[in-house]
């Protein structure tokens, strides 16, 4: 791994750090915010499983993102990741809700425009479709999970203290699954744009062999894991903005969110669905923030009219506006930054692709 590559990769690692600092709250926010888990316990579990998810199962969603735009020069990868990181950072600073996935997609589209690479409308539609599907799916999962959990509690009638104990264990298990899914699904956002331009080779550490791509995902995963330890403030506030969520409700939200990420990143699930002749679920990075917002709304709606009335619609409107603005802003920043990197810093940001006819 040469120094140039590490310098270029720094923007991806920065993006990974900010993803950890923001999105870890989607996994463990309700648990830490409701004081069911201590922050350091949540952070350690989250960090370990994010890295595992990234290295073991990160490839699926990464391929999906690569189809949107194969950034073929390190300078381009660096700039796109930087544009996404700047977008996420600025919008977070302004207090606007932001999705890392959307920022990266916007950045790639900006690169496509700059490098005159055609953006595949089918792939773009598929990705944008998940921006609607993820929150809806999160909401549906939350409604079903809430109903099942409520029925279970009503039938079993556990003592409040035992329910508290089970919820804590549930938070740890669901959080570990959520962190694994976050690593598997969102690592593509962090270092996915570096995959086509990376020349990392496979290495063996004892009995474990890591491919070049897995080494890249490991680095990205470690950056996300480092960011997790800076997410305490976000964790303490998440889940309280849209509606107030109790411990059991918080657990439902975490599981629903984790399932959404799992569905969009599991190659095993995709293969199983194909075998059963069911429609394929695209393996692409989805926004964990969108999944959480959908799950929280689903939970409120599961409480009926009383719950729906508690939703702070103005907050929800701001979130939706943020979702529209993020990719547009990221695309613009990416386009402008690519121009500067190419013309001011004299770095190649793309390599022209010569079309060839297969014989």
């Amino acid at each position, binding site marked *: 791994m040469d120094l140039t590559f590490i310098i270029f990769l720094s923007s991806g690692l920065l993006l990974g750090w900010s993803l950890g600092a923001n999105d870890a709250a989607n996994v463990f926010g309700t648990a830490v915010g409701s004081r069911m888990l201590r922050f350091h316990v949540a952070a350690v579990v989250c960090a370990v499983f994010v890295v595992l998810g990234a290295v073991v199962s990160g490839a699926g969603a990464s391929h999906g993102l690569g189809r949107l735009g194969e950034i073929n020069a390190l300078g381009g990868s660096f700039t796109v990741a930087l544009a996404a990181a700047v977008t996420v950072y600025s919008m977070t600073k302004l207090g606007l809700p932001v999705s890392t996935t959307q920022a990266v997609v916007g950045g790639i589209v900006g690169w496509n425009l700059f490098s005159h690479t055609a953006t595949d409308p089918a792939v773009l539609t598929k990705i944008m479709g998940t921006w609607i599907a993820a929150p809806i799916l999160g909401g549906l999962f939350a409604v079903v999970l809430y109903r099942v959990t409520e029925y279970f509690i009503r039938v079993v009638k556990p003592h*409040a203290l035992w329910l508290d104990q089970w919820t804590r264990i549930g938070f740890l298990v669901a959080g570990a699954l959520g962190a694994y899914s976050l690593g598997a699904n969102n690592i593509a956002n962090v270092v996915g744009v570096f995959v086509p331009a990376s020349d990392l080779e496979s290495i063996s550490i004892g009995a474990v062999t890591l491919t070049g791509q897995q080494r890249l995902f490991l680095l990205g995963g470690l950056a996300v894991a480092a960011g997790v330890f800076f997410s305490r403030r976000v964790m303490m506030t998440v889940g309280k903005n849209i509606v107030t969520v109790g411990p059991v409700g918080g657990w439902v939200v975490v599981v629903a969110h984790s399932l959404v990420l799992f569905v969009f990143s599991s190659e095993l699930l995709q293969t199983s669905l194909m075998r059963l002749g069911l429609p394929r679920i695209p393996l692409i990075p989805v926004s964990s923030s969108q999944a959480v917002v959908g799950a929280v709304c689903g939970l409120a709606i599961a409480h009926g009219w009383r719950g729906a009335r508690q939703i702070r619609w103005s907050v929800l409107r701001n979130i939706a506006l943020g979702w529209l603005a993020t990719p547009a802003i990221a695309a613009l920043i990416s386009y402008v930054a690519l121009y500067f990197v190419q013309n001011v810093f004299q770095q190649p940001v793309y390599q022209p692709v010569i079309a060839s006819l297969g014989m």
Partner: protein
Amino acid sequence: MAELKISPFRRTRILASQIDEMLDIVSQAALAFRHAIGHYIRSGWDETAEVKYRQLDEFESRGDKLRSTIGQTLYTEMLLPDTSGDVLGLLSSLDRLLDDMEHCLEVVRIERPEIPPEYHDGWLECATMAAEAVEQVVAAARSYFRDPRAARDYVHKIHYYEKETQRTALQIIEQLFQSDLGLDRKLQLRGHVWLIDRLADKADDAGDALAIYAVKRSV
């Protein structure tokens, strides 16, 4: 001395059994209170009444200790983070009921009021209704921990027994002041009736608080 760490499961089991013990104590105290008053009306303050009083005194001391231990564990271990305040409020209400029952008997023990026979039935009914209100608080509290939706089934019974206690108490006081007893005895007996009525009032307050706690837990 190094703090002994116990597993979360064992800690939960111990705490749940402490809460159950607290509820058992209040329920037994209500029974002891009813028996003590009934016995005093029939036979005056003798050895049996003294035994019942000592029993109540022990229940009250144990209740104090349990409330403090449970509260400390809840806060130091961050258990029931969203409802620990309610649980502590509930335990405090139960402890106040223990205090009031003990105080009621203590005053009888000190003053040994002479209750004229024509008031015996009403007096016993008044004490029985107040003790029943306390027992319904215990039932509602048990329900709060396992099935909060069902707690309201007991809360309306608490209201009923409180109203009955008040009705009987007022009846006795009215009759007392229409009687030929001396003012000093009228005032003394009225004071004792009021103590029993206050016990039912406290049970009613605990029931109102429980109704709100139960709604919060069901959401």
